[in-house]
């Protein structure tokens, strides 16, 4: 057998794991027979380790608050270049102020004729989600139609809504599923999943009723891009969004409703969003 010649590029590709298994075996055999080249490759590998260890420290540093704030800032990002010094800050501030003014102006003007994407939010169904929340959350005896323990809950709702209804796990956020119910909506049936705050075993039962949040799901009116919005109605906070069609089924509108601080609702909304991406368990 006469394998292709092994040059330096091949050796680098070998080190970087870019070769096919057959070629890798060839290179390894060749390296055994060429100790000088093998020593060279070992040095490259050592340099790679040096790079990784020397620069690993950054990964353990906490994310600077300024960077994290960039992520949660509302409104259009400025997307400008980076520089240094006061000019950048002054520029950023000016842009920010201008952006605020522009944003306020746009909001003012765009309110009646909503832009394409805002249509996805259909305030009407979100309002229905809030109403359904208000109606069923105080229920003591019949908060849900089908309890969480019943296996067919997810299948039943999925079938009736014609969108994949997953029973999201919010235990990491301190809430457990109570169950779900089918509700009428303009476009067809919708579903409500109810979650209740997990009360620690030792807590006294005489306290107020545990906090409940509801997830309202429905088939969106048309194929609309994902929007992630927050709305506050008195003490009631709502996150709502539309998810596009996935391998598991068609698009689905979600509204998470609860009397909780925005951050806690957000954490739950994110958990739901994430779980929506993974295949049904």
């Amino acid at each position: 057998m006469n394998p292709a010649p092994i040059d330096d590029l091949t050796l680098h590709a070998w080190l970087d794991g870019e070769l096919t298994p057959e070629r890798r075996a060839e290179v390894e055999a060749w390296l055994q027979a060429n100790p000088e080249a093998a020593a060279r490759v070992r040095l490259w590998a050592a340099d790679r380790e040096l790079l990784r260890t020397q620069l690993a420290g950054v990964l353990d540093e906490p994310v600077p608050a300024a960077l994290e704030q960039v992520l949660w800032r509302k409104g259009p990002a400025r997307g400008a270049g980076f520089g240094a010094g006061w000019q950048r800050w002054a520029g950023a501030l000016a842009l920010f102020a201008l952006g605020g003014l522009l944003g306020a102006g746009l909001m003012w003007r765009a309110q009646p004729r909503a832009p394409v994407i805002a249509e996805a939010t259909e305030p009407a169904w979100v309002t229905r989600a809030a109403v359904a929340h208000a109606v069923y959350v105080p229920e003591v005896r019949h908060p849900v139609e089908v309890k969480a323990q019943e296996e067919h809950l997810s299948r039943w709702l999925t079938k009736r809504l014609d969108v994949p209804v997953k029973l999201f796990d919010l235990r990491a956020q301190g809430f457990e599923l109570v169950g779900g119910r089918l509700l009428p909506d303009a476009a067809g049936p919708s579903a409500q999943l109810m979650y209740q705050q997990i009360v620690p075993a030792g807590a006294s039962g005489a306290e107020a009723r545990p906090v409940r949040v509801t997830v309202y799901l429905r088939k969106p009116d048309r194929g609309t891009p994902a929007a992630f919005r927050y709305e506050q109605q008195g003490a009631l906070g709502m996150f709502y969004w539309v998810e596009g069609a996935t391998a598991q089924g068609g698009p689905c509108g979600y509204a998470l409703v609860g009397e909780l601080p925005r951050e806690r609702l957000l954490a739950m909304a994110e958990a739901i969003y994430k779980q929506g991406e993974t295949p049904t368990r």
Partner: protein
Amino acid sequence: MDAPAAFRQQLLGAIPRLRRYARSLVFDTSAADDLVQTALERALAHWHQFDQRRDILVWTLSIAHNAYMDDRRRHARMPMADSNEAQAAIEERHAGDTPDIGLRLDLVAALKQLPLEQREPLLLVTLEQLSYAECAELLRVPVGTVMSRISRARVALRALLDGRVPISAAAQTLRRVV
């Protein structure tokens, strides 16, 4: 419209590695974080262009790369590649007395000496563990170019760390300390 919270969360997760990459590009911590900030802002502004089947890190790294290139174009001369500055950094760090100082200086100084076109693919492949194909796409050069640049970068880095290409007198002195 604003990026979805889940997308922001994904970006948040990418920050540590973005920071590391930026740091290996511009070395100076605050300049690197400025670059990360720019990359994050651009990512947020263009979030709808992100294909969820792709790796968010590769995507944001490419944004950071583009932002960096834009900035370099803006300031035709790149101060970070200046060997005088590298020298200054060496001396400054020498004053700081961290235990692995000699090693660290040599590596950072050597990295600084590498031309950007070699440094970037080397870092993307060895540090960020991108494939050659991902790296080529990110840098918008053919895979063959990535391969030859990585090859040259490794050889040059080795020579620099070996002291065969004198980095500077200060670095030589420091090497003796180690």
